[in-house]
């Protein structure tokens, strides 16, 4: 990957220029589809954008000292990490990549979650701290499944390059891994039944309770970018390999859109689980997916 293609991917497509409007669009799709399922009207198309602009225009209480500095820094780090993760996705054919970019993607996908945990504790709010503790417990639970699912796909293909994985032939292991990722996405995106860190009826907005104005706008943007990155990861693994750039981009957007609808339907149809039930779910049930995937990967490796 040359510097020019790297910059183009990070800043234009599928990076910032595409990812930011896509983040607002996916946030709108999620809110609108849930509203329609609940027989409500839902927000207008531009609402996530209006929310962002409105929050940017609000002033926030002055935060002094290192805690204030950290509180301002966490959302910016989260946005940068999520945008970087989107930029790494091999959407277009021959867009290049490098050995080990999958590991970088996983690290960038995890950074917003770490920032949320740190932000909750930095805010010194009891609700923020509880939300952060929940996010940490949830993160430890679902990440094992998430990482094992991706690593097993990579191990079966003998590569940690994203573009190689995206163009690899489909195997049952591939689908097991994708299913495991899909199971983890609701927890990663804080939607029902795993919306524990921001359970408003229990702890207000959790780690976000003390945030307002431009910093909250950045958190919203980071959340939207996480949607694009999470659903985009599934889309790149599911999408058939095509040589035409615009067609590849359209397929990527269409699959991401379908995944957003699927997750929204799940969110609308379920109640929130308690933290112990959620942790038990990921440790007991979905671990089966990952164990299955790893054993399949090892089996395929010995056969080859």
């Amino acid at each position: 990957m040359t510097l020019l293609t790297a910059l183009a991917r990070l800043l234009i497509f599928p990076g910032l220029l595409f990812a930011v409007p896509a983040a607002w669009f996916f946030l709108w799709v999620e809110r609108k589809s849930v509203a329609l399922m609940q027989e409500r009207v839902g927000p207008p198309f531009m609402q996530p954008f209006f929310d962002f602009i409105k929050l940017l225009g609000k002033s926030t209480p002055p935060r002094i000292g290192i805690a204030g500095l950290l509180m301002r820094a966490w959302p910016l780090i989260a946005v940068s990490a999520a945008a970087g993760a989107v930029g790494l996705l091999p959407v277009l054919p021959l867009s290049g990549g490098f050995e080990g970019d999958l590991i970088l993607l996983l690290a960038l996908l995890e950074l917003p979650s770490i920032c949320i945990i740190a932000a909750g504790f930095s805010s010194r709010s009891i609700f923020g701290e509880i939300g952060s503790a929940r996010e940490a417990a949830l993160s430890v639970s679902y990440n094992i499944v998430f990482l094992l699912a991706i690593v097993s796909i990579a191990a079966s293909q003998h590569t940690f390059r994203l573009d190689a994985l995206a163009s690899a032939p489909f195997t049952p292991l591939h689908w097991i891994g994708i299913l495991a990722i899909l199971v983890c996405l609701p927890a990663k995106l804080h939607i029902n039944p795993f919306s524990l860190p921001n359970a408003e009826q229990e702890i207000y907005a959790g780690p976000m309770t003390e945030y307002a104005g431009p910093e909250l706008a950045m958190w919203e943007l980071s959340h939207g970018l996480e949607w694009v990155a999470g659903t985009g990861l599934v889309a790149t693994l599911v999408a058939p390999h095509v040589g035409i750039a615009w067609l590849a981009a359209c397929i990527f957007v269409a699959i991401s859109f379908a995944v957003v609808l699927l997750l929204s339907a799940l969110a609308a149809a379920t109640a929130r689980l308690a933290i112990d039930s959620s942790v038990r779910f990921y440790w007991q049930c979905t671990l089966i997916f990952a164990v299955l995937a790893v054993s399949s990967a090892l089996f395929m490796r010995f056969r080859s």
Partner: protein
Amino acid sequence: MSYKIPMGPYHPGLEEPYKLDMICEGETVVDAELNIGFNFRGIEHLAETRNYVQVIALMERVCGICSFIHTLTLCQAMEKLTGLEAPPRAQYIRVVMAELERLHSHVLWAGIAAKLMGFKTMFMTCFALREKVMDVLQAISGNRVNYSMNHVGGVNRDIEDPIALVPMIDELEREMMRTVIPIFTTSSTARSRCAGIGVLTREKAISCAVVGPTARASGIAQDLRRDAPYAAYAEMKFEVPVEQAGDVRARLFVRALEIIESCNILRQALAKMAPGEISSAGEKLVFATGTATSRVEAPRGEVMYSVTWKENSRNPARVHVRTPTFANMPAVRWMVRGARLADTPLIQASIDPCYSCTDR
């Protein structure tokens, strides 16, 4: 290390202003303290400055959900002081209104419980269903919240064609059986959030003197409609659902079964409605000196009114209201002890609290 979490007085999980201070260790609640009094309106004192017509309209505003029950209880107490008795048709109309109010209160509570579980789709479903119950209430009384149905010695409006309302009740029951009751009774999500949490044992329920569905879910078979019948309840055949588990799920079960029983009572009342007058009150009411009490089974439990009057006075000397939440709220402390923090909104809501009525 323990820490204190304040829940309220203004909180997304609470319908009304009150405060639950919880002492937690990790995600487990060790102890809790309930504070009320954020919505004191001085209604009891205001009642002493209103005449016997105005006081009914005033007491209807004690609660926005069981407004009919409050006026019914007040009017029954005032009827004892005046020696009047509502005619049979009025008694049946009172039963119909009281049961419709129970239906809409239970469905509203189901919606709130669903919201507290984070199940907003179910919340919307319940509230859409509640609208249909309110449509029936509107068809009878012309109003949706404060019905202005009761006066001393009868009711203000007749149900001209009771049988015409039966299909509406059937439709309501069908909808409830299709949506609310399955969620209440068979949904695995509801089960995982409700089973075994917020347990109030029968012994503790007796010592706290809880009432209504909260008592019935802890194995105490009490219901004023059966134990001390008023209006036309003596002529109705119905079961009093009782559960033994004492947890939130048992309270869900009791309310779900009560919805079905309410539909049964409504059909009976509409079918048997006696012809005749709807009021026995004359031009002017004469009150005897003394105190009269009246008790009614509201959706949340027993409501008690104590009305004191002095002869030749237009205004009551004292009106005292005891709402079911006043009896049930001490039990919340015992229910939340040892519970997970995530369950506390649902546990405190499981008594179907109405703290603004209690503040009155």
